[in-house]
């Protein structure tokens, strides 16, 4: 399957990665090469096969639905590029 420039642009947008217009053709080519490689999977008969969801059949551990942690606002915010008054700060979201 060949990926066109429009698809590459759309995927970059969905992935929230700014890709300059001039880089899109090369990116589309790389995607095409990788997807071409992946296409081999179409040779496999997967009729009636359940998708694998876990490596070993085990029920995920349950625990009581209780608070086990908290009151760590300062630690949580410590690595934020911009934190103010106990909040993460971001550019304006609504006009």
């Amino acid at each position, binding site marked *: 399957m060949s*990926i066109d420039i429009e698809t590459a642009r759309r995927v970059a947008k969905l992935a929230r990665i700014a890709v300059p217009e001039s880089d899109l053709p090369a990116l589309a080519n*790389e995607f095409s090469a990788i997807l071409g*490689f992946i296409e081999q999977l179409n040779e496999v008969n997967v009729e009636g096969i359940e998708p694998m969801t876990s490596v*070993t059949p085990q029920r995920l*551990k349950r625990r009581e639905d209780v608070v086990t942690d908290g009151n760590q606002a300062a630690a*949580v915010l410590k690595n934020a590029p911009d934190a103010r008054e106990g909040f993460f700060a*971001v550019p304006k979201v609504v006009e």
Partner: protein
Amino acid sequence: MSELSKLTIAAARDALKKGEITSVELTESCLAEIEKADALGAFVHKTPDIALAQAKAADARKDGGDLNGIPLGIKDLFCTKGVASQAASRILEGFKPEYESTVTSQLFADGAVMLGKLNMDEFAMGSSNETSVYGNAVNPWSVDGRKLTPGGSSGGSAAAVAADLCLGATGTDTGGSIRQPAAFTGITGIKPTYGRVSRWGIVAFDSSLDQAGPMTKDVRDAAIMLRAMSGHDPKDSTSADLPVPDFEAALTGDIRGKTIGIPKEYRMDGMPAAISKLWDDGTAMLKDAGAKIVDISLPHTKYALPAYYVIGPAEASSNLARYDGVRFGRRAKIDAGDGITEMYEKTRAEGFGPEVQRRVMIGTYVLSAGFYDAYYNRARKVRALIKRDFETVFGDGVDAILTPATPSSAFELGSMTDADPVQMYLNDVFTVTTNLAGLPGIAVPVGLDKDGLPLGLQLIGRPWEEADLLNTAYALEQAAQFVAKPDRWW
């Protein structure tokens, strides 16, 4: 005392217990070697103050574990409290976790000493350590003065252990990232069964494939270190609540009566003669040790890499969505009038290198509306078939499977720059199947190629039977007698 860094973990442990050496002496020896080895690019954040404090505490401790006072290197993918943990990515520049990963917590509880953080491919995506924001890690093994890759993604860990900068190191393995670099540098590396080691506090790449494991100078050290890293962790819902055996106690070297499978699908077209011969030699060694050799078939092998390159990027695109310039790491400078979307897009464009961007976008594509069934669900079904291949041969009585670890010896840094990305992905052709099936796999150095570079073989074991697998690896190690070391050029 500069020779101390060359000790194995087992030898250092025994000497420490007898009081022949102190952890401070051992740690100072490693720190001195690290200072002389910047050309290897292995240690990217050095922590000598932490190391010496931990060494002093270890020397004062009376009841330490096997790793008490043992100096280790930690892959940059592990979050270490108050110490830069960047996954070798620009997007995590300046990130110092407020918490400690479960693996490093357990190592420290056992008494281990952290020398610093080790180089790797960015977010563990790569097979040559060339995608790191820190620059390349370099293989201590060299031919004609050429700089070779130590492999990847755990390239810094492999280089550091092979060059005797530390006694052992942590690695992580998603498609071969412990075993391929171990093979390229002549050391031992084991990826345990998925769920054996907690993933909590390790920067997530592909959550259903990632496992941490030790990279060490020999099989005994791998057994010692794996025991300290393993165990159930309530903070990782996929970690297994199973007892952790004393892996070292299993090392008898007696494999008489064991059945070793040789999978025909791993004999790839165009396999170099040196790899083919190494594999035959290893087979003969196990046979001589008393194992029964059987030919087996794992029919879906050729579909493992394509399935991996759907499932891997899909999970990576989800996991890496968190790097948005809001909660941690680096935020791009934005222009007047830019909103939050532009902030995300610029931050991720600046912060992620080309390979990471490529995989995030491939993942985004295969998960997007209309393609999810065609790519992602199909790959998960193929994954189930790959796992079934292994279950069938284990059901037929095979105890372990012997394969090459890599399709070649270490290649020159920069030699793959102009290649198609798929060419680099082929490095994982022998190792990726065990990640998909969740099985334990170990790489053991077995011989040298005509240029004098190390080559390794891989043994694949039954789930949760790392003890038996390590013992088979130990028998192979004893037969191979691999003692070569790189000539020092750094």
